[in-house]
């Protein structure tokens, strides 16, 4: 080093407020830079690419709206992937919310060993990955699997047992049942919300003679509606992006019944090397997600209650 450094000149012109703002920006800078470089940048790039025949390494020519026109008018697999994804979201999201809520209500009861139960139900959130998927493959095995063995014991004739992942009719329901397991771990959100519901409201309801079912619908649900709403928004956008499980378990089959939108994008981009077309697919998905979210925000005014909100 070249001697001691001279003291920094005192900064004038920066008052306390400005200095605080500067520090603020400095602290969020890592996120901001990350967002600009790894989210916004690639998004704009993919928007541009969706109007080209980009294939990553050899061509990048402007083709106008050709990709969009082709996928909307000629591409039967696009519509197939879209309908599979819609099917999945329609069933997986409400069932997932119901499962999480039901478990949260159960775990909110005062019984012995409640901590143990809470830990057990949180496990699905911790255990994920390919190993768990392979376990599910066994659960749904038509011949030696847990579910079909149980159905057989319950008296379902051998020839009527579902073939699950081998049958286009049952492959999607199998994936939806599978998603319930992970959704169960989401009880944490609802449990936190349930804890926040004031007890005196239940007491008043009881004095009015409301049954527990009525109490649930008239007191609990409205008061935790912001959490349900949050899970609905994130759940739908998550369900629209559901696909990696189908890549590992079914490869999109049988008969394209588990060809989900994300899987189709991935295949188009990395097997066919049609990155421009895949970008167009991705943008369509973004538009669909935004539209659904917009509609939900609009409807949320009717059923979501925020504490202290004046109407």
């Amino acid at each position, binding site marked *: 080093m070249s001697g001691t450094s001279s003291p920094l000149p005192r900064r004038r012109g920066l008052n306390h407020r400005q200095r605080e703002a500067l520090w603020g920006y400095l602290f969020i800078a890592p996120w901001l830079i990350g967002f600009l470089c790894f989210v916004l940048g690639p998004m704009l790039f993919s928007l541009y690419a969706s109007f080209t025949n980009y*294939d*990553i*390494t*050899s061509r990048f020519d402007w083709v106008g709206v050709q990709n969009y026109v*082709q996928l909307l008018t*000629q*591409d*039967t*697999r696009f519509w197939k992937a879209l309908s599979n994804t819609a099917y999945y979201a329609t069933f997986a999201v409400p069932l997932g919310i119901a499962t999480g809520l039901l478990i949260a209500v159960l775990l909110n009861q005062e019984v012995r060993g409640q901590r143990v139960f809470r830990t057990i139900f949180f496990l699905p959130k911790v255990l994920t990955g390919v190993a768990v998927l392979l376990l599910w493959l066994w659960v749904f*095995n*038509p*011949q*030696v699997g847990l579910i079909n063995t149980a159905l057989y014991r319950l008296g379902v004739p*051998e*020839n009527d047992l579902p*073939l699950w992942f*081998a*049958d*286009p009719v049952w492959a999607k329901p199998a994936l939806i049942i599978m998603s319930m397991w992970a959704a169960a771990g989401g009880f944490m959100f609802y449990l936190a919300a349930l804890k926040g519901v004031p007890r005196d409201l239940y007491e008043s309801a009881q004095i009015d003679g409301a049954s527990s079912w009525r109490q649930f619908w008239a007191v609990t649900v409205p008061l935790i509606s912001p959490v349900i709403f949050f899970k609905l928004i994130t759940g739908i956008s998550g369900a629209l992006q559901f696909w990696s499980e189908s890549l590992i378990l079914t*490869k*999109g*089959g*049988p*008969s*394209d019944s588990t*060809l989900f939108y994300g899987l189709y994008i991935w*295949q*188009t981009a*990395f*097997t*066919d*090397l*049609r990155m421009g*077309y895949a970008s167009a697919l991705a943008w369509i998905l973004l538009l669909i997600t935004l539209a659904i979210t917009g509609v939900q925000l609009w409807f949320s005014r009717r059923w979501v209650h925020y504490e202290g909100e004046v109407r």
Partner: protein
Amino acid sequence: MNKTLFLLTAALLGSAGAQKVTLDLWAHWGSEQRRPTINRIIDTWNKKNPNIQVKYTFVPFDQLPTKTLAAIAAKNPPDVVVIDIRTTPLRASKNQATNLSRLGADRLKDQFYPNLWATATYKGEQYGLPFVTDSRFLYYNKDLFKEVGLNPNKPPTTWDELEAYAKKLDKKTGPVYQRIGFHPLYGSFGLESWVSNAGGSMWDEDRENPRFTNPTALRTLTWIKEWTDRLGARNVQAFRSSFGSGAQDPFISGKLGMIIDIGGYAATLKKYAPNMNYGMARIPTPTGQPGPGTSSGGGFNLEIPVGTKHPKEAFAFARYMATEGARIWAQEQNDFPGYKNASLSVTTPAFRMMSANMKYTEVSSAPRYAPSYGSILDKAVDDAVYRGEDPKKALEEAQAQVQRLVNSNR
């Protein structure tokens, strides 16, 4: 003092940097069984070539194509990759693989099996060196043959015989199959392989346009469908779901009387079923006569991605790996090498059979305008074989879809 030290370091770095090169090799071999051999091949090279040191990076099999692609796009690719033999022409056409003809690869042509060399040829130029391949065979259980009164030394040679033998081997209690003699879609031989086996092809000569509805394809799909109908589509699917690996392997556990698998399956049988009395035969054809597509194979080529800073050194190493390296690999791993000399150094019976079967083995390339056609064709097969769709209609649908893909990718 500081200045002197700096100059000294710079001088040292400079003189070393002028000669010494480190190459990055990517491949998917990371297992306990594969790793020591690849390490041995690289160590041998590194000892002999102090100025061209090779560093090995293991990349999981399913991530290798995408990671390589991303590295090429980022202009920082590995120098040599071991990659899927079926997609070299695709990468050549997309400017991802280096033209090796310009580095002198054409002189090596005669040292490799012609069908394997051809997998890396695009528009008359060479874009890869064949490393290893495989070939498929019919494996049959001799004890089960004896049990049902078939001659264990006379495996089937025609499709009719195959079906007659299979019927004898089927074993049923009530409506449930305990054993199935053979099914064309069990094992690793799909519709496309059966069409080649019958002397046809799903593509035109240049593998540019699909012709899924050709008579051979239609006849073959109908044959598979009739086979399935006889057993019951539901039975065929449910039965398949009971297959596992290792000791649960359907052939080892006696659930299947015959199965098609690669030559290396002999090693699996040796490991998991050392006492099994089995035979290995050429895959039956409609006429009983073998042809160029009777069997099928996959495998791996060595490629030099576009953008490497050391193409000459990379080629020198790729050449060593495809020849001397392949010899070591064949001896230790029993995979069949593309380099002819290396294939002569292994003498196990399975290996000799593979060698003899090479000229009847088709190693086809993925069509470069529709690399993902497989999933569309799979759907057609699924629909026709298991779900009662008319084979002709199923193939027509797939044909139209793939043709559209080809047209828009051209």
